[in-house]
C-alpha cells in the first residue's frame, strides 16, 4: 500500500527532469538507440535468414511514355521497390525490341532511367511496352492511342494556354457576373447562395479527392501515393487554418467586410488549386493521347466551371468590392488551369499530380469550414436551416448535372 502513496510523488519527481542539458539527453537517447539498432541490422543482417530462397521483390513503375517523333518511343521508369532491378530485355507489342537505356541497366532503389526505343509506332493505334527483368518479372504499360507527344514549343504553349482560358478563366469570369444580381438579394438569400457554394465546393472536393486517390494508385509504391494525399490535404488545410487564425487575431475577426473579402480570395485560391488539377488532367490526357478534346468536352468544362464564379462572389456580394478585386479573384481561380495544362502536357508526373490535387482538396475543405463558420456566426440556424440546406442540395445537383457534360 506504500507504493500507492509514494506513486504520485514519485511520478512528479520523474516529471521534472532537471537541467535543460539533461532534458536534451533524454530526448536524444531513443534516437541514439535507434541508430544503434539500424547499425546492428546493417552489420549483422538478421533478416537474411528470411530471404534465403526467395527471389528478390522487384517493382518498376513506368511513369510516362512519350512519342517524341515518328519511329521513337521514350519510356520513363522509376524503381519504387525495395531492391535494385535489372532491365534485361524490352518488348514492344510482344516482340523483343532494340533499345537504349541512359545509364546503367540496373536501376537502384528510387532510381530513374529513360529507355529510348526505335519502334515504328502507328498513329492512332494502341501499343504495349513490356520491360522484362533479369529474374523474368514483367512490367507493362499501354499507350492507349499513339500520337506524337507535343514538344514544348511556342505553338503548343499557346494552344494549351488557349485551352486553359476556355475551360478555366473565361467560365469563372462569366460566373463572377452574377455579382450585381447577388448584391441586391438580401442577407437571407445570400445565405442561400453561400450554402449553394458549399454544395458546389463539396462536390469539387470529393471529385478532386477521388482523382487524387486514383492517381495515387499509379505512384511508385515507395513514394506512398495515399500518404501523399493525406499530406497534401491536411498540409494545405492546416496551413490555411493557421494563417487564418493569425490574421483573425491581428485584424479583429468580426466577420466584417475584410474577413468576407479574405474568404472570397480563399475560395478563389481553393478553386484555383482544383482547376490546376483539372488542367493537369486535360493536359496530360491530351499529351498521352487518351482523350480527343472535342468541342463538346470544352463546352462541358466551361458550363461546369461557370458555377465556380458564383461561389467566389457569394460572400462579398453585399460589400460592393471594386472591379479590380473581382478580376483578381477570377484570375486566381482561373489562371492555374493554364499552368495545369502546361505541366500536364509537358512534364506529367503522377507524384506531382497527386500532391497538387490533394493540396486543392485541403484548400476546398478549409473554404467550406470558413463559409459554414461565418454563416453560423451570422445566423444560429446556419447551414441546416431549410432554405440553406436546400441551397446546399441544389449546389450538389448543379455540379452533378453539369459534370455529366464532361464525361469524356
Amino acid at each position, binding site marked *: 500500500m506504500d507504493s500507492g502513496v509514494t506513486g504520485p510523488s514519485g511520478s512528479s519527481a520523474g516529471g521534472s527532469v532537471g537541467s535543460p542539458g539533461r532534458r536534451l539527453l533524454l530526448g536524444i537517447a531513443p534516437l541514439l538507440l535507434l541508430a544503434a539498432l539500424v547499425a546492428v541490422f546493417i552489420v549483422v543482417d538478421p533478416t537474411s535468414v528470411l530471404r534465403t530462397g526467395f527471389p528478390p521483390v522487384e517493382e518498376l513503375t513506368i511513369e510516362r511514355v512519350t512519342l517524341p517523333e515518328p519511329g521513337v518511343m521514350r519510356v520513363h521508369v522509376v524503381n519504387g521497390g525495395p531492391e535494385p532491378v535489372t532491365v534485361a530485355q524490352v518488348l514492344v507489342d510482344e516482340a523483343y*525490341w532494340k533499345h537504349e537505356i541512359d545509364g546503367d541497366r540496373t536501376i537502384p532503389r528510387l532510381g530513374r532511367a529513360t529507355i529510348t526505343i526505335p519502334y515504328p509506332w502507328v498513329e492512332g493505334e494502341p501499343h504495349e511496352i513490356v520491360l*522484362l527483368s533479369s529474374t523474368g*518479372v514483367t512490367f507493362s504499360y499501354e499507350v492507349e492511342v499513339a500520337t506524337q507527344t507535343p514538344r514544348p514549343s511556342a505553338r503548343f504553349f499557346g494552344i494549351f494556354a488557349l485551352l486553359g482560358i476556355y475551360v478555366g478563366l473565361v467560365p469563372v469570369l462569366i460566373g463572377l457576373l452574377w455579382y450585381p444580381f447577388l448584391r441586391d438579394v438580401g442577407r437571407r438569400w445570400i445565405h442561400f447562395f453561400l450554402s449553394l457554394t458549399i454544395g458546389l465546393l463539396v462536390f469539387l472536393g470529393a471529385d478532386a479527392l477521388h482523382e487524387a486517390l486514383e492517381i495515387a494508385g499509379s505512384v511508385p509504391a515507395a513514394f506512398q501515393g495515399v500518404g501523399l494525399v493525406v499530406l497534401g490535404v491536411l498540409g494545405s488545410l492546416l496551413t490555411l487554418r493557421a494563417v487564418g487564425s493569425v490574421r483573425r487575431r491581428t485584424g479583429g475577426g468580426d466577420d466584417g467586410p475584410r474577413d468576407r473579402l479574405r474568404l472570397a480570395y480563399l475560395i478563389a485560391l481553393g478553386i484555383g488549386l482544383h482547376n490546376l488539377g483539372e488542367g493537369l488532367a486535360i493536359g496530360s490526357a491530351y499529351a498521352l493521347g487518351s482523350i480527343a478534346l472535342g468541342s463538346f468536352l470544352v463546352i462541358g468544362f466551361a458550363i461546369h466551371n461557370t458555377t465556380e464564379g458564383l461561389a467566389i462572389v457569394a460572400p462579398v456580394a453585399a460589400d460592393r468590392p471594386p472591379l479590380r478585386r473581382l478580376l483578381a479573384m477570377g484570375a486566381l481561380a482561373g489562371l492555374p488551369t493554364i499552368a495545369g495544362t502546361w505541366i500536364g502536357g509537358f512534364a506529367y508526373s503522377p507524384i506531382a499530380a497527386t500532391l497538387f490535387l490533394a493540396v486543392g482538396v485541403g484548400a476546398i475543405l478549409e473554404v467550406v469550414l470558413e463559409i459554414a463558420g461565418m454563416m453560423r456566426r451570422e445566423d444560429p440556424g446556419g447551414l441546416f436551416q431549410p432554405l440553406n440546406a436546400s441551397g446546399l442540395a441544389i449546389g450538389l445537383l448543379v455540379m452533378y448535372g453539369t459534370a455529366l457534360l464532361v464525361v469524356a
Partner: protein
Amino acid sequence: MSRRDWLKLGGVGVAGLSGASILALARRGGAAAALERAGLRQEAGSTHEELQQLRMGVFGDYPPGDGFDPMAFLTEFDYGRVVRDPSGRTVREYEMVAVDREIEVAPGVWFPAWTYNGQVPGPTLRCTEGDVLRIRFSNAGSHPHTIHFHGTHPTEMDGVFPVIEPGERFTYEFEAKPFGVHPYHCHSLPLKRHIHKGLYGVLIVDPPGGRAPAREMVMVMNGFDTNFDGENEVYAINTAAFYYQTRPIRVGVKEPVRIYLVNMTEFDPVNSLHLHAAMFRFYRTGTRLDHHEFTDTIMLCQGERGIVEMELENPGLHMVHAHQSEFAELGWMSFIDAVPHLAAEAGVPVHRHG
C-alpha cells in the same frame, strides 16, 4: 574506324533489319560469302557489334562459359552405357537426376527451372528399336517428379505412377519401340507447371536398319513463362531465345540434313516450324520410313513431333522460325547457313548410325 568499315556496318545493319534482305544478298552470290566479305563470319574476326546487327530486338548476348551450350546440344546423342543381358540383347543404361537450376532463357533473363541432369531440354537419349532401356532416375529436386516416356511399354513403366519423392529413386526399364522420335517428360501434378519448368527431353528410337546417313540434329520447340502468368515471355528452340540467329547452324550445300523436331511448348496449343528458301520432307512421329508431306511449314500440337529431312540447294542463310510471328519475335528465330563443301571441313560429324 575507317570510312570503309563504317560503310560495311551500314550495309550489315540494313541486312539485319530483315531476313528477306539477307536472302536478297544470298541470291547475289551467297549470303555466306556476302557476310564473309562484310566481316560477319562468326569465326573469323567478327566483332560483337557486327553480330549484334543480325539480332532482331534482343539486347545483349549469352556469356560464353560453362552453362548449357545450345550449339552442342543440337548434336549430342546419349547412347547410354551398353551392356548385354543374358539373352544377348542390347541394354542401354542411363542415369537421370532431377535437379532445380536457374537457366538463362534469353540474354540476361534467368528462369528458375526444374531440369533433368541440369539442362533444359534434358539429354537426348538414343537407341535402336528392340533395345532394352534401363533408366535409373533419382530425384534431387524440391518437388516430386517422374519420367513419362512416349511409346509402347508396360503400364507400370509409364512414368505416371509411382511419383518419385525428393530423395527417392526409381528405375524405368522397358523395350524401346516403336522406332521414331518421342518426347519424355515429368508427369507429376500440376502437370502444366512440371512440364513448363523444364522437365522434358527427347528419346530417339532408330529403326533396326538405321536411317540413311545425314547431318543430324535435335530441335525442341519450347517456351518459358518467366512471370508465371500462364503465358510465355520467351520462345525458342532448345531453350535459348534467338541463339541460332546470330550463330547460324552450319550445314553443307546439298548435304542430307535430318532434324528431330519435338514440340514441348506449354500454354500455346500449337507451335510451328517454317523454313525459308527451301522445302523439306516431313515424317510424322518418325514412325514410318516414307514421308507424309513435302512442305516448308509444319504445325505441331503440344507433345507432337516428327522428322524433317532436307538437302539445301542454295548456299547462304536460310531463316528458320515459328510461323506464328509472335513466337518468332519472342525468340523462336534461327538461321541455317548452307556452306559449300562443309563436309570437308572440321566440324560437326555427319551422323552414321551403327
